[in-house]
Every structure is written in C-alpha cells, then in structure tokens.
C-alpha cells in the first residue's frame, strides 16, 4: 500500500473493516445501517457538531472536562455530575490507556479488579470492552453532547464501537495520536489507520449523520510553539476532509503569554480556513478548541485555580469555540469528580465574565498572528512539496527530515531536534529550530528573542533553561528564571 491523501474506495474500506470488527468480540455488534438510524434519534441538544456550530455563531466559548472511569454506571454518574455540578457544556469520555494500546485483555482484568476494589483501577472508560450496548446506555443516560477522547494510535475498532454507540464527536489523528502517544509505531501506519477513522466519519456524513472530528491540538503539551501544533492540526484537518469529514475542530494548547495565545487562535482559524479552501475542501465547518495549560501544575489547589483561571481567560479573550478544562488536582493525577467540577465552574465563571470583552486585534497581537502564519506556512508548504503535492506521504517524509518536529515527543519517528524556550515575555520560541524549514528572517527572530532572554538572565541558552521553563508554572512562574 502506498500512503496517499486520497479518499478510500468502498471496497478498500469494507475490506479492512471486516478484519477490524474481529479484533475483539464486541466488534460483532457493530451494524452500520442500524447505527445510522440510532443517530437519527439523538436530539439536537445532545449533538456535538450542532452545538459547536451554534456556539461559533453566537460567539460562545463552551466548557468541556476530561473524565473517564472503568465501570459503566460509575462513568454515567461521573458525567452527569460534571454536567449538573460542573455546568459542563460538552462532555467527554476519556478512554483508558490499555484500550489506547489495544490491550483489551488487560482492560477486562482491570474491570474485574475495579469491581472488586470498589474504585476505578483504570484511568479511563474501556469503551471497546463495554461494546455498543454499553456505550448506548451511556449515551442515553447522559444529557449532553459526548466526545471520545483518547490517544490511540490504532483506534479503528474503538471508532467503530463508539460511533455505532452514538458518540457525536471523536478526537485524534494519525499524527497527533502517534507522535505524543507512541514510541515505535510508524507514522505511515497511523496516518493510514486514521484515514479509516476519518472515512468512517465520512460515510456517516454521507448518510446524513454529522460527527465532529477533532485532531489533538496540544501534542506533547509542553512548550509546543504554535506553528508546530498548527501545522499538524491543519494537515490532519485536510486528511480528515479528504475522507469526507465535514465538521472539524482544530486545537491549540495554551502557552501562557496572552498575546501569543490570542494570536494563536486567530492564526489557526484564518490559516486553516485558507488551506482547506485552497486544497479543495470548502464545505467544512471549522471551530477551535483551546486547551488550558497542559504542562506541569502547582500542587497547591489555590495556585492551580489561578492557572486554570488564566487558561479560561485566555480562551475567552481569544474567542475559542470551546475550552478543555484542567482541575485543581492536576499535579496529583486523576481528579475527584468534585475537583473536576470545580475546575469547570471556575472556568465557566471567567468565560461568562469575559464574554462581553473580546480581545481586539491590537498591534501586538497582529505581529504574533503574522509570525505564526509565516512559520506555519513554511512548514505546511514544505510538507506538501516533500509529498509531491500530497500531505499524507509528505507528513511521513517531513517527520523523517525534521521539517515537522515535536518537542519532547516519545516517538522514534520524531527527529526531536527542535528545542523550545520562553522569551522574556513568556512567549514560547525556539532556541533550537532544528530542521524546521524556516526563512532566515524567522530563524533570526527566534534567535533574537532567546538571546535577549539569555542576556537578561546572564546565562547562555541551554537545556537547563528548557528544564527551568518546564518546571516554571508548577513552581509559580511562567519564565523559568535562574534563582537569584
């Protein structure tokens, strides 16, 4: 098979599908025609894509938590709690890490153990094990739009089961669920496997069922410069659109400098629209998601609330369509449902308070928008060139060449040559641009920013500076200055 950004044929898709549904016994319960009919009964208020479109139209920023536990009834209770006590607009189902590695046998054991222990021993909801019937019970027991959130390189069976079960939104992508989530799975394979997922969503769309798709924006979640995540997001948007996906949400993880964060959302909206239209996908509805700070959090809950609130403020000022919310337990692992609801309520308060003051396109924002766009264009155009006009094969070659590169990625398929660091104002820049195909102007810009910081701190830029930045927010700062 040669990887191409080309809509799969009917025969190709159904050929693969036959295999996929046999990966675990619950696959046998998937029936596409019946699933379409099931989707037709889902009311609009529980429909993810429709809710996003409405929010975009009204200039709203919707709140969404992360949450998932091993057992069905507990998971239902958890989501209902986040809906009522957390006032969440959109609901997730976070999938456990064994499912993400297709270790369904481990899931089965952990479900057993969780029942015995009376608490979840899994960090998410094992949807494949629960099967279509389990998922439908969930969908019917929860009064809100539901999205699958995971981190699964090969998610094909999970996609089949959760969509047949009635989920109306699905996170992930062939790059964004490989590079940060796998060590030794080739990009060629994950991009190919995710074409399957996108094609399935496309087929639903062709049957009148609109399912929202969301590439995973923050990647490794740690000092990822906007141009990197934007390039991946736009490529995955294009790959999804080619397979027939019509409703796409592109994401970005907060960096922490307000001007850069506001600019990142604006640049993402504008560039994605431009590239999708330019490459022939003009009928997609695009929305944006802003992730509250994805790096290390302070352990103290009061301080965590401050970090959460700053993320909420940036999301609201940037007018992202939705915001993914952290919790005051972030530094300590998976939160209680009460802590999760508190993070949501704090976020809701700030989003509502700031709803009437969209951030204007100040000169400072404009500079950042132009910089992010120029950087992202360099990468995207080179990826397209490396693929001889194909973003799928181009992406594989681009990662090999370091033209696409994600800082701190666990994957062997990321060159891991770039190194980010903050500038004096806390904006994330590149202290090593690696092989990114930037113009000399852009390279000089980054160098000047990092040099200015190094000078301010009286030290050379080094990996220690990067480490200081990684720990900074958990220690109460944005820029990891050396101790005086």
């Amino acid at each position, binding site marked *: 098979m040669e990887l191409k950004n080309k809509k799969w044929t009917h025969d190709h898709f159904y050929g693969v599908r036959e295999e996929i549904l046999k990966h675990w016994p619950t696959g046998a319960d998937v029936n596409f025609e019946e699933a379409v009919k099931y989707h037709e009964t889902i009311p609009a208020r529980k429909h993810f894509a429709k809710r996003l479109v409405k929010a975009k139209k009204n200039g709203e920023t919707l709140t969404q938590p992360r949450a998932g536990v091993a057992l069905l009834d507990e998971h239902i209770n958890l989501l209902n709690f986040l809906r009522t006590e957390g006032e969440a607009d959109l609901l997730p189902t976070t999938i456990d890490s064994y499912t993400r590695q297709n270790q369904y046998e481990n899931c089965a054991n952990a479900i057993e153990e969780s029942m015995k222990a009376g608490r979840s021993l899994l960090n998410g909801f094992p949807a494949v094990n629960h099967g279509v019937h389990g998922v439908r019970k969930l969908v019917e027991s929860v009064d809100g739009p539901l999205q699958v959130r995971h981190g699964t390189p090969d998610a094909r069976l999970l996609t089949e089961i959760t969509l047949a079960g009635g989920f109306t939104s699905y996170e992930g992508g062939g790059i964004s669920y490989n590079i940060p989530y796998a060590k030794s799975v080739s990009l060629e394979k994950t991009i190919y496997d995710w074409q399957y997922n996108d094609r399935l969503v496309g087929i639903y769309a062709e049957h009148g069922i609109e399912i929202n798709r969301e590439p995973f924006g923050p990647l*490794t979640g740690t000092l990822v410069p906007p141009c990197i995540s934007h390039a991946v997001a736009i490529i995955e948007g294009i790959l999804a659109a080619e397979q027939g996906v019509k409703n796409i949400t592109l994401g970005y993880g907060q960096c922490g400098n307000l001007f850069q964060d506001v600019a990142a959302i604006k640049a993402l909206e504008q560039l994605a629209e431009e590239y999708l239209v330019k490459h022939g996908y003009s009928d997609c509805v695009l929305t944006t998601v802003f992730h509250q700070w994805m790096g290390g959090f302070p352990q103290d809950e009061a301080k965590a609330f401050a970090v959460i609130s700053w993320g909420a403020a940036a999301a609201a000022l940037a007018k992202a369509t939705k915001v993914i919310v952290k919790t005051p337990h972030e530094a*300590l*692992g*998976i939160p209680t449902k009460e802590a999760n609801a508190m993070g949501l309520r704090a976020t809701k308060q700030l989003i509502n308070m700031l709803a009437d003051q969209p951030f204007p396109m100040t000169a400072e924002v404009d500079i950042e928008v132009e910089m992010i766009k120029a950087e992202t264009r360099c990468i995207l155009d080179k990826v397209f060139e490396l693929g001889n006009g194909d973003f799928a094969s181009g992406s594989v070659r681009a990662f090999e060449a370091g033209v696409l590169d994600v800082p*701190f990625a*666990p994957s062997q398929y990321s060159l891991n040559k770039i190194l980010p660091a903050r500038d004096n104002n806390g904006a994330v820049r590149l202290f090593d641009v690696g092989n990114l195909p930037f113009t000399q102007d852009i390279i000089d810009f980054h160098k000047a920013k990092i040099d200015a910081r190094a000078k301010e701190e009286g030290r050379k830029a080094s990996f220690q500076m990067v480490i200081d930045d*990684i720990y900074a927010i958990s220690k109460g700062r944005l820029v990891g200055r050396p101790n005086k």
Partner: protein
Amino acid sequence: MENNKVKVILGVIGADCHAVGNKILNYAFTSAGFEVVNLGVLVPQEEFVNAAIETDAKAILVASLYGHGEIDCRGLRERCRESGLGDILLYVGGNLVVGKTDFTEVHKKFIEMGYDRVYEPGILPDQVVIDLKNDLGL
C-alpha cells in the same frame, strides 16, 4: 572512561507514554555522572529486567504518570529476583494510582511491593540523584 560510570535503567512503565519527565530525568542523571540506559516510554517489566541484566545496571528507575502504576508495577521485584537481580535498587515515582490519594498509603503499598524508594508527584530530579548516590554509597 565511559565504563567507569554507574549504569541506571530509566523508563516509563506499562501503557504510559508521558515523555517529558523521562527526558528530564535522563538529562539529570547523565549530568550527575551516571550512564543512563533510557528505555523511554511504554516499557514492559521484562524490558526493564533484560536491560538491567545486559548492562549490569545498579538501579532501575521506574516512572508511572498515568494512574495505572499499581497494576503495572506489581511483581517487578519478583521478576528481578527470578532473574538474579535480587538486590538491585528499584525506585518508582509519579502519579502512581488513579485519583488523589493519601501518599502515606501509596508509599506503604509500593514499599511492600519491594521498591526501595517511592516518590510522590512534584519531587525534583535532584532529590532522586542525591538519594541514589547515597544508596549506592557514591
């Protein structure tokens, strides 16, 4: 010269792919003069043991950030003993269980599993380096 360095095995256990801390620990232990055999993320127990045998490492440093640590880490000490690594130092740290839990209990549980040191979230690499040097009499 390289051969004089004490070797340690580093890795993130189980189905966990949290890479950032792993890269920082790698840097910290290398800077502190150890030779780090970094297995990266998504490391099964047998890979830790095999690497320790192959390299004659003095310690295995296990990280688990995603909450499944309790399941993933169980039995590693036994596996070490069976492979003749009985007294190798076993450290573990991270967010070891699902949910916010009293660390005293978590600590007790992992000590009983045979780990020599158990670290709570938020511990900085420097502390682990100091402890390892102490435990190895360096």
